[in-house]
């Protein structure tokens, strides 16, 4: 394994083009189905340019995979949905601009659940991505492609997006690091919206240091996103080695119990004890309203989605099939053909929840629950510095095992969605294995507490070797 900063230095020897070509060769032979669109030509061109003149960017020459739902100028951006096939954006997302300005090379787009709606990357119109640790298992979702290509050695790093766990879940299932930043820390300009009040773009990398580096590149205020806050740039690397001595860790009592896999529970407790051994202390805390989190999350996310996805009508871009009739018939036909069943389910439920007479009963109530959950977190952070929990209650499950049981899929998000509702940052780091399958530890910080979370994650990673293991995929 090689750090991104180190990789960038090594590539300055003039071998970027060769390195990028090797990755593309590997991807083409891969069984993971992690990439949807490869930007081979432009990536090789950029690599050749880098070899001629490496520049001073902090990610100079480093190839990076971008989740399907992040807008890339000149590279198809379809959110793994039929309805957006053929849409090539005329503009780069803020995060892509930032990556490019630091010299990173955009490799292509990574597979995902259609419109980020899923926990398994099985709802993609390109078919499921496979988990590199066991190709009969899912990689998690919705940023499953991003996680799988990093874990599988097809890209040194990737960007994902996290609406209810979509970065942390696949990071956990694929044994890598994934961070969901504080809401407002990273500009969403160019992120195709699923549930815009909940989601953030976050890095997926092999190491905590790489995540810190990518965060330094992508975080910071962007005037094009009114919800982006804070200063223009942040420093995460400088305090990374600060250690956890004296750090108070809260263990939400709601996070262990029914539904949590025994091996997961064991690995996470071991991780907590590791941190304790490094000088941290722990205590149980309570987040009493998190039991309503899943219900509130799905009402809010689906409501927002029903509106966010209304623009896909085939009129200006994307799918346009069949004979044109009057606009209403044509829009309906395109949406019926273009959206997959999970997306339709969420649009219908969200539309229902926002309807006159139901708004107060569902959406408004969910917002109230959201406020209570946020208060739970604020209260907990009055007592402790960070919270620790399993990222996912289970290790990766088999492809096809749960796809026809949406409720059991939704339940898997139980530890990740409260974080999005509260808007706080959380990281998933590898903390063990259940057989061949990785287990993730989730460390949660207060609003804008990324530095603390990264510091704790770094301390844990330095004391353990889970991140050094690689899957053997062909």
């Amino acid at each position, binding site marked *: 394994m090689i750090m991104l900063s180190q990789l960038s230095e090594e590539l300055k020897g003039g071998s970027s083009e060769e390195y990028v070509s090797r990755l593309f060769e590997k991807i083409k032979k891969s069984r993971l189905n992690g990439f949807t669109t490869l930007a081979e030509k432009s990536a090789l061109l950029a690599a050749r340019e880098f070899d001629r003149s490496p520049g001073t960017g902090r990610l100079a020459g480093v190839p990076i995979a971008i989740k399907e*739902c*992040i*807008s890339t100028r000149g590279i198809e*951006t379809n*959110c793994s949905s039929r309805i*957006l096939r053929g*849409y090539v*954006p*005329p*503009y780069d*997302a803020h995060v892509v601009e930032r990556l490019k300005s630091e010299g990173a090379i955009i490799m292509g787009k990574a597979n995902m659940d259609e419109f980020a709606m899923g926990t398994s990357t099985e709802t993609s119109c390109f078919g499921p991505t496979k988990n590199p640790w066991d190709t009969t298992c899912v990689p998690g979702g919705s940023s499953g492609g991003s996680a799988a290509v990093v874990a599988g050695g097809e890209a040194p790093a990737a960007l994902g997006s996290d609406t209810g766990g979509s970065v942390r879940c696949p990071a956990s299932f694929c044994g890598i690091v994934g961070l969901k930043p504080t809401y407002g820390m990273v500009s*969403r*300009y*160019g*992120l*195709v*919206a699923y549930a*815009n*009040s909940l989601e953030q773009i976050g890095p997926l990398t092999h190491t905590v240091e790489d995540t810190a580096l990518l965060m330094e590149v992508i975080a910071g205020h962007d*005037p*094009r*996103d*009114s*919800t982006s806050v804070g200063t223009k740039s942040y420093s995460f690397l400088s305090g990374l080695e600060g250690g956890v001595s004296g750090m108070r860790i809260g263990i939400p009592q709601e996070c262990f119990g029914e539904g949590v896999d025994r091996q997961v529970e064991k690995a996470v407790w071991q991780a907590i004890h590791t941190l304790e051994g490094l000088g941290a202390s722990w205590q149980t805390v309570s987040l009493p309203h998190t039991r309503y989190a899943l219900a509130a999350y799905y009402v809010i996310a689906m*409501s*927002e989605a*029903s*509106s966010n*996805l*209304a*623009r*896909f*009508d085939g*009129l*200006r*871009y994307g799918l346009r099939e069949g004979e044109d009739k009057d*606009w*209403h018939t044509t*829009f309906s036909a395109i949406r019926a053909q273009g959206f997959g069943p999970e997306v339709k389910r969420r649009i219908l439920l969200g*539309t229902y929840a*926002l*309807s*006159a007479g139901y*708004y107060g009963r569902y*959406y408004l109530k969910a917002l109230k629950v959201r406020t209570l959950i946020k208060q739970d977190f604020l209260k907990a952070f009055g007592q402790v510095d960070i919270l620790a929990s399993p990222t996912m209650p289970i290790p990766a499950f088999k492809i096809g095992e749960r796809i026809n049981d949406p409720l059991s899929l939704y339940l898997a998000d139980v530890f990740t969605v409260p974080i999005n509702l509260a808007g706080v940052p959380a990281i998933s780091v590898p903390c063990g294995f259940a057989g061949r399958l990785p287990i993730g530890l989730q460390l949660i910080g207060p609003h804008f507490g990324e530095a603390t979370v990264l510091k704790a994650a770094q301390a844990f990673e330095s004391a353990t070797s889970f991140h050094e293991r690689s899957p053997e995929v062909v």
Partner: protein
Amino acid sequence: MEDVIIGLEIHVQLNRLASKMFCGCSTAYHNCQPNSHTCPVCLGLPGSLPVLNKKAVEYGIKVGLALNCKIEEETLFYRKNYYYPDLPKGFQISQYDYPLATAGHIMILGDDGAERNIRINRAHMEEDPGRLVHAGTIDKAKYTMVDYNRCGMPLLEVVTEPDLCSPKEARAFLDKLKSILEYLEVFDGSLEGAMRVDANISLKGGDRSEVKNISGFKGVEKALSYEITRQRNLARRSIKVVQETRHFDEIRNITVSIRSKVGAHDYRYFPECDLVVLRIASWVPAIREALPELPDAKRERFVRQYGLADDHAKSLTSEIRVANFYETVAKMAAPRLAAVWIADVLKGELNYRDMAIDAFRAEDMAEIVQMLDEKKITEDGAVQIIRSLLDKKGGSPQEVVAALGLGKAEGDAVQRAVREAVAESGAAVADYRAGSERALNFIVGKVMKKTKGKASAAEVHRLVKEEVDRA
């Protein structure tokens, strides 16, 4: 009309802003290529986000204050969800709860000639959708094109209470609103689609119909008049008015049903999370401070300061440009005379030619008023100068006077003509001396003929009388 109840919803484009509501695109799209004034944001491309034009909110507050509204402490935006090809996001960013301004009022001249207070329910901000261009008429077009240049234009929707009693009052309200908006310099009414009106109308005791998207104030009057007749006819035949939305057909001057309220839209309003809640209370004092003098205040001042008649003051203040024009002239020439000539003559001549006040130079007007005041020209001559200048037939008023020989005949010339005329009119002089005052008119007519109408008739009458009496 005591039984008529009318309420208006007026969509005002804040078209004096340089950029659109939520993106940096220019608002100067009129007469430009379709879809040339667009970007990822106003086209609603996947991943784009709105950024509020702060100036648009300031303009909105300005209007709210001018309409005597209460400005909310905080305001926020909502999504209004519906599908239509001119709406690229599938929702319109609008306001719902906590609109910018509520509970205002303005005064209009009512049908009975008295001032009437018309209450404003609210004024809220939203983005304009694009524009559909049908290949042919709306019902027969083979295809339709969409132009998104207008998409994202800042709109202010002003909603009245149902306080208006006739189409004429509706018109008076719109005139007043337009006047205020132009005073505030937030609005240019001359641009296409700058103001669109939805009118709700019912007869007492009946259900209401809503006539949507009427452009032009005459259109509003006509549509409402048609609706009153239609609803009265229904009532006469004991048929209930259906609550519905109707379209005003400008060519046939009728309204036609487009949908009944039974299948009314559920717009599923909910807060737009891509924008943050705006605390605007602190903006208000500075905006209030900077408010210009509004039409009513200006009218009162004109009466006070220049001693004008109320109707002249009203006529001069209904349009800010006319008011400014008048004040410029009033600085250079007799204010009361200037008021009469601008309000009664110049405005009429401009109207007739479909011209705006800026087609005439204030300096020219001042010169004309001065010449009138000094009796250098006749009233008839002044009208001719104005017409000639408007029709671009001359340079300065002086030049027109010279060219057309409009200078008032004076002194010697008139005296000579009087003497000649008296000498030539022995019979008339005899009649006069016999006691017929009217006989002098014959002589006056002769003098006028000799001076080619350039002399003042009253003056000539006096001179003739003197001449005859002296002889």
